[in-house]
Every structure is written in C-alpha cells, then in structure tokens.
C-alpha cells in the first residue's frame, strides 16, 4: 500500500500517522507538501492527518481546503482513489466539498482529549474490513471542533445510504448522549462519501496502534486497508 500523507502548515499529527502507516503497512508513506500540485505516482491511499492547518484561523480546514494539493486530491478521489481524513483532515474534506456537513465547536465549548468508544457501523468497505460490523473500538479524540452537523435532508441521506461508518457509543455499543462527548448529530464520528472512497472521522485511530499507547484498537483500520490493496493486487 503506497500512502501519501499531506502536510499543511500547522498540521501536527502527520508523524503519528506516518508511524502508524509504516508500522502496519511496512512501507514508509510519502509526505506531500501543501504547495505541491501532484500526488506521487502510484499513490493508493491519500491521508489528510490531524492538526491545526493554518492555525485553524478563519474556520477549521477552510484555508487548507483551498491549498494547491487539494485539486490533485479532488481528481484522485473522483477516479475512485481512497482518501482517509482524520480530525482536521475531516474538517478539511468537508470544507473542500468531498464530504457533506460541517464540524462545529464541541457542545461543551471546550477542547476534549480522552478515549472514546466507537461503534463500527459496517465492515464491507475498505476502511473497516479489519473490523466486524457492530464491533466497539476504543480510540482517543483530541479536538475542540468535532461536533458533526448537517441539514436534515443530508442526515437522512447519510443514514439511509448507510454512510455513517463510526458512531460514538457506550462501551457496550449503545448510542447514548452521555457517551457522545461533542454533541454530534446522531452521534456521528465518521462518514463516507456516496462512492465510499472518502472517509472522514474525528477520532485518532493512529494513536492506538501499539501496546505502549494503551490500546491497539486503531490497527484494524490500517490493517483493513492493507488487506484491501493486497487483495486488489
């Protein structure tokens, strides 16, 4: 699996992401500078990592969404290439129009860093084939603006088309306001686009991939992607 990790000024989880990709795919990802206009040839997976691109100034992700490299990402996604967008990456792809909706400030109006539980809603896409549908995984979140909101019609479509991939839940998989730390609509933690090749999620699976980090629940996402490309080859 050849991955490309985008680096915008102010992005700060690119090393975490690169380490997870290296660890699980056995291959060093390419780090791609925001001002570049092309992705490395043969890229299988584009990753937009977490951080504070452009300081989150103006609006989270708004400036990065208009960076030169994003045109290449749009073309890549339009051809069916897989795009994984985490945290600030999720905000960027929403701003870029690759996913619907927007990430608002957390309901409590505070940044929150803690482990959360995610219910994996489906396992028939490349991003989640490493998990079972209904499985609950534990991964950290670290964001101030992760409260997913979209208009009623969009939410209905996302739900109707099974495009909600991860949902905040209790440890036993129940959706419950007490376990929805940022107040996201329908406890949405991650969604895919219509075609199923662009995933955006707020939590950080890349921070739970080694025993030293406390848990390894995040590995499934990367391992599933590696499997997907192995089968495709």
């Amino acid at each position, binding site marked *: 699996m050849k991955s490309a990790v985008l680096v915008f000024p102010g992005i*700060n989880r690119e090393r*975490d992401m690169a380490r997870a990709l290296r660890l699980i795919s056995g291959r060093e990802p390419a780090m791609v500078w925001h001002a570049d206009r092309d992705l490395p040839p043969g890229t299988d997976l584009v990753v937009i990592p977490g951080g504070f691109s*452009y*300081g989150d*100034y103006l609006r989270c992700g708004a400036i990065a969404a208009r960076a030169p490299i994003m045109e290449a990402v749009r073309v890549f996604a339009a051809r069916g290439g897989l795009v994984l967008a985490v945290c600030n990456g999720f905000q960027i792809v929403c701003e870029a129009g690759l996913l619907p909706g927007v990430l608002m400030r957390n309901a409590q109006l505070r*940044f929150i*860093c803690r482990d959360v539980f995610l219910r994996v809603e489906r396992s028939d896409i490349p991003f989640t084939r490493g998990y079972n549908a209904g499985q609950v995984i534990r991964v950290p979140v*670290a964001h101030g603006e992760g409260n997913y909101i979209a208009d009623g019609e969009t939410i209905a479509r996302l739900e109707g088309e099974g495009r909600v991939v991860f949902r905040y839940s209790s440890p036993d998989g129940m959706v419950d306001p007490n376990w929805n730390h940022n107040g996201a609509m329908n406890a949405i933690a991650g969604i895919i686009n219509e075609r199923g090749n662009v995933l955006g999620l707020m939590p*950080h699976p890349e921070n739970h991939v080694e025993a*030293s980090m406390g848990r390894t629940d995040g590995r499934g996402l990367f391992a599933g992607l590696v499997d997907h490309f192995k089968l495709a080859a």
Partner: protein
Amino acid sequence: MWERVASSPAGGEEANRTLHVRSNEPAITPELITQHGLKPDEYARIEKLIGRTPSFTELGIFSAMWNEHCSYKSSKIHLRTLPTTAPWVIQGPGENAGVIDIGGGLAVVFKMESHNHPSYIEPYQGATTGVGGILRDVFTMGARPIACLNALSFGDPKHPKTRHLVSGVVAGIGGYGNSFGVPTVGGEVRFHRRYDGNCLVNAMAVGIAEADKIFYSAASGIGMPIVYLGSKTGRDGIHGATMASAEFSADAEEKRPTVQVGDPFSEKLLLEACLEIMAKGCVIAIQDMGAAGLTCSAVEMGAKGDLGVTLDLDKVPCRETGMSAYEMMLSESQERMLMVLKPEKEKEAAAIFRKWGLDFAVVGETTPTKRFLVRHGGAIMADLPIKELGDEAPVYDRPFAETARLSVIDAASVEPPIGIADALEKLIGSPDLCSKRWVFEQYDHVILGNTVQRPGGDAAVMRVNEGPKALALTSDVTPRYCEADPFEGGKQAVAEAWRNLSAVGARPLALTDNLNFGNPERPEIMGQLVGCIRGIGEASRALDFPIVSGNVSLYNETNGQAILPTPTIGGVGILDDFTRSMTVAFKAEGESVLLIGETQGWLGQSVYLRDICGREEGAPPPVDLAAERRHGEFVRALIRDGMVTAVHDLSDGGLVVALAEMAMASRIGAVLEAPRGVPAHAFWFGEDQARYVVTAKDAEAVAQRATAAAVPLIRLGATGGRVLAIAEERPLPVGDLLSRFEDWLPAYMAASSA
C-alpha cells in the same frame, strides 16, 4: 542584501558624541526612571557606567535588562549555591534550557518558567505565551519538544476571580500546546486564598535532541550576520518583563497592554524552520526573543560571546509602521528568534524560512567592540557597554529574616472532628485533592504517540522515539510546607519530585526549579527564598538530582499580600524499558497492600489539619533525605525485579487518600487494618515523608527484602471487592468515592461566578 553598517569606534567615547537624541523623546526625569522600575541607586549606576545621561531608548534597554525577571539580581548569589553538575549533565543553568545525557546519543532539554503576572491580567494570552516561551527555550537548543507540564496555583475557589482565571489559563495552555502539537502530560492545580491576587502559571517543556547537536546562545566570530527569524515585531508586550518585576496594586487590570498575544501556528512553523536550518548547519548561535525581546536576546548573545553587537532597526520586520527604536527594543511580540548565521549559508537559510512563510532578515552583526550599538533611521539610538548590560548586571545581597520555627503538633492533641470515612469522602472531593480531569482533558496528551502514562498518575511516562527507553516527568511543591519552614519545604519539593519519578520506576536524573515568591525587598520574603533555595540545594545534593535550569518569579504580591512561597520543582527521570513502568492502579483482587516507610502520624501542616480541622498550623513534616534515598532505591528495585504490581507515592492527604486513589484508578476495593500505636486519624491522614504504598502478589518476598535493606514495611491488608473497608469504619464503595473525586471540579466550573 546585507549592507554592512559602520563598526562602532573601539571605545564609547566617540560614539557618545554621535548619540542621537530625538527631540520628541521624553526627557529623563526621576518619574520616568521610576516608571521604568529602576531605583535611584540603579539609575546612578547607569550614569556612572556610561558617563552621561542615557537616551530614552537606552533607559528602556537598561530597564529591560536590569529588572528582576531578566537579571536575577535578588536571587543570583543564592542560586549560585545550588548543585548543577553531574556526569550526565551536558548544560546547567545559564542557557535557554538545561541539557542532560540519556545515553544512546540522545539528550533531554528541559526547563520550567513562570508566566504569573501576565496570566493574572489576561489569563488566556498570559498562559499561551507562557507555554510558547518555554517551548521556544527548548527548541532554540536544537531539541524537538516531546512534552509539556504545568503547575498552576489559583486563589480561593470562592474568590470572584478564581473561576475566570482557571477557565482562561487552562484554555490558554490547551490552545497553545494543542495547536503547536506537543502533548501536555502532567502538572498540578492547587487553590489557596493566598493566590487570590496573584495566580501562578509555571510551564515546563521537555525536548529530545542529539547529544552532539545542541545549539547555544553565545555568539562567536566577528562580522557575523545577526538574523531575525519568525513573526513580525509589533507594539505588544512592551515592558512585560518590567511589569513582571513589580508587585500589583489595584491597577493590575490596567497593565493589560503589557501582555503579549500568542500565535501557536507561527510557533509550529518556527519550530520546523529552526530545526531544518539547524540540521543544515546554518547556525552559529541562536537565542529566542522572550522577556525583553530583541534587547535581551541580542545583549545575551553578545555578552556571552564577549563580542559587541550592532543592530540596524530599519531592517527589523515590523507589524505596523512608525515604530520607534524604543518600542522595537522593548516589544515582547511572540514567536521570534535571533540567530548568528554562518555567512555562507544565508541563501539556504533564507529559502527555508520563506518556505515556511516566516520572516528572515539580517538585522545586524557581531563586532569586536563589546558595545551594544543600535541604529535607527540613520541615527545611533543606543551605544552601551554590552557586558555590564548583560552578565554584569547589578547583584544584590538583600537582607533576609529567617522564618520563625513553628512548634510540632502532637497528633494525640488533635481532636478528630469527624470520622475517618467522612473525612476521606470530604478530602477526596476537595479542591486540592479532587480529580483534575476537567483540566487535563482540555490538553491533548496523546499526540506524538509516545505517552505511556497519561495524566493522573505519580509521573507521566513518555517513550523516547521507538523505545525501549522512556522519560518520567513530574512537577511538585507543597507551598504550605514552604511557608511554615522554607528549608524543609524546599527539601520536600525536591524529595517529592524524586519520589514521584521513583514510583513509576524511573531513575531521577535532574530537575528544573521555578521559584515563585513575593517581594524580595521584604526581609521575611527574602528569608523564604533563601531558606527554600538552601533546602532545594541540600536535597538535590543528597539525592544526586542536580538543577540544570530554572526561573525566578518575584514580586508575586498584591497590596502587600504575598503568595505562599512556591518553589516548583520539575523533575526528569529515565526508565530503561517503558514496558516496566509502574502505575498507581490496583491490578487484581487478593493482592497484599504494603506500606513502605515510617509512619509517625505527622499532622502539622497536613491537608487533614487544614481542610478537616480548619487549622493551618504547626511544623511541616521533616524530610529525612537518607531515608528518601534508601526507600526510593528500594522501590525502584522492586519495580525492576517485577516484585510489585502497583506503586503510589504518599503526599497530600496521606496514606488513605493514596489508597483511595489506587482503588479509584482500578475500581477494585481493599480491606485495610490500622496498626496500633498511632492515633487512627494521624495514621491515615498524616503526611510523613519518604513513604510509598505498593501491592504485591508475594508479600513475604517483599518483606524479606525490606528487612535486608533496613527499610520499614508493614502490611496494611489486601485488595478485593468494590469497597474500601477501613478497620472499624463505615465501608466506602469505590464508585461513590469516584463520583465525589470526579465531580467537584466540573461542578465548580459549571456554576456561575455570581
């Protein structure tokens, strides 16, 4: 690009004649001198030094360099007594941060610094710039920051300003560190009415560098270009350091313009750009622009290198037009650095900074004259002897009065107002001992993927790169002990940091001290400072725990009311294998609970005496450094040999609070017996030092070792069930304790401050 400015004449004589005094600059009057925080004798010293009346710009420069914050004039002679060396110390105090060798070609760079005064005036920006400043200190030396900690002291929770300060400071620390991308993994939060008028924000940053690639601030070479890096200079933070060197009166709010504004985005870019030019070998010397900005950084680089410095202010990137030399020299705009560049690398370095969208401007050069020459608009605005400005600033041996000894409180004479169970419930949900989750969840503590032990334990544990080595990090001080007995309190702060590192299995290596006190011109305050420094020195010598960096914050005083003496100690230790780091949580049912160390039942200055009995009295617990060392080494060996399953250091609240924390962390209860001979409340809540609680599967083996090592050890009971069952007391469900523990701070912060 770089125009060579004419070198200053060899001496000051000729330069003096050409010194330009702008007609619109204020005349030097006694009032102006006072406004600059300079005492009449200090001003007389300036006139004597330069042989004339200083210009307005020069007066500003002197006030920036000779204030307490930058010059350490009241503390210097005492700080010199501290032990600062060890075979593993690469750089002790005097640089941007301390550096220690951790083997494998790696070094740890760390320091703690206060941002107290600005945080009280403007909590969000004060705290952010405190974090930004300390991060810069670390990456200026060539290290990539891997962790931050912060020690926060606030006033009485009932004080109308406290909630606002907690909210702003915590959001500010998070706002900066989270965006910059460094995990904030530890610290302290305390409340006491003595911080009502002065909160304390002590921020510590820790970085990793290659041991043979450390960058220093001393300039070298004549005619070398001096380069300005980072953000543009604006009119913010002018006189910040002078403000921080005076006590507050009722006008604290009016000092808001002296507070800088932080931009973590620029700092992240500055970090990446600096590490890149360092890796490319462009840098001769580098210094961050912190307190007193351009003045302090330029003077320090020159003075340390025994060189003169000429600055051409027309080249300084400015955020706004029309800034005067005075404003530029005193601005504390953030995210800026000054560097002496290898001349042949100018193009390469400039390109790197442009790539990151940062300013890069050659603004001066080194000279052989030992003069600090500042040009602006074709005129010389300052021409001063650089050594006297910098490392030869005034030094005071201020008179001090030793703190009177307080009598030892006999535990048997303290009537317990409530039972043990009730007292524990109350303490566990009190401002000082409750969970600080509300605080640390606002800090990203998992970024970089190396946090092995997150906030909430005795010390944070951070894997070094891919391991197996790890660092243990902690910050500690018990201000009420320091107030009651500065010497014992100073010892205790160091001992507790050492103990917390030992409790996770780390070998303590070195510490940074952040000394927060009131007005040193008052002999009783000076006595606290001197006593604490003596205690810190004694403990760090006894424990082989040298001081490699630090910061002094004085004048933490409002309307004559000083803070509690608060010498915060930031400790760093090393683990050879992070998988062996130990945590506080009970691990399984049916394990023995053992107490290591002597329990006399010391209630003087304990949290129990203060919060349950309403008495802030008595001598604090004495610290037996030989016992600390023996017990700490014993515990580390137990951890290393896999003989214990959980370890917790005993500190505030004593034994039963520690046991409750171990239970809450695991949701496993315990059945506990109190031995005879010590009154129950003193046994459970006394704060005797040099103690740890451990759990073990094989208690007998641990006991045999203890006997052999002459370490006192008793068996308290066993883990199990879902309640904390203390002999002869009402059993306490662990879940209930946890609710009390977790609920206080969120409930307090959610309540309106009416």
